[in-house]
């Protein structure tokens, strides 16, 4: 079983998919395995992260375990 990355908004277009199964592990390691152009976007300062539905203050020290869902959230654009 893997962990899952979820890309919202324009990040979905950049990733070319809305979800991506990844090998669990420290966030730095997960991101290092991605296309560098995507990883740069995911780490943009206006992109927030939510782990299993809960917002993270920052990504420091995050280690994904099996079944985790990490979402990358660009600024919301209003309903």
């Amino acid at each position, binding site marked *: 079983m893997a962990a899952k990355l979820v890309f919202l908004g324009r990040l979905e277009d950049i990733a070319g998919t809305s979800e991506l199964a990844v090998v669990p592990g420290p966030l730095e390691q997960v991101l290092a395995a991605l296309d560098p152009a995507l990883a740069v976007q995911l780490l943009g300062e206006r992109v927030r992260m939510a782990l299993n539905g809960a917002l993270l203050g920052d990504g420091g020290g995050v280690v994904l375990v099996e079944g985790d869902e990490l979402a990358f959230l660009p600024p*919301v654009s209003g*309903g």
Partner: protein
Amino acid sequence: MAPAKTDVRLLGEVFSPSDEMAAFTAAHPEAGGIVTFLGQVRCESGPGAVEALELKQYAAMTLPGMEALAAATRARWVLDGLLIIHRHGVMHPGDPIVFVAAAARHRRDAFAAADFAMDHLKSQSWFWKREKTATGWRWIEPRPDDHRDLLRW
């Protein structure tokens, strides 16, 4: 007094705001005043006209966030009932996007609750929007107004 009835829905299909209003009104015979807000996809013309709009939601956060907003709204004003309906998915001109209804004994509470809920729905809900015009789809960035709206409360 019975606890305020709260109804929060995230819909993938078109809905009828006037039918929702009729049902909400029928459910709140004790309320003296009912305020509703309907936001719809504007029908525009000209080369920059929006032909379609898509709102993407995130299942783990969007509906839970709407429910938290409803609870905060209920806590802040004395309401007989509160309804929040929001679309996701692809919408076309004339389609309803969001419908909020607040029922209260006092008019002022109903107005303020609907206004507060809308300001927060527009600026803090987990929706990502893109619009389709003649030149294709384009993601929409937040407007400075959205932030200003929040500072009112």
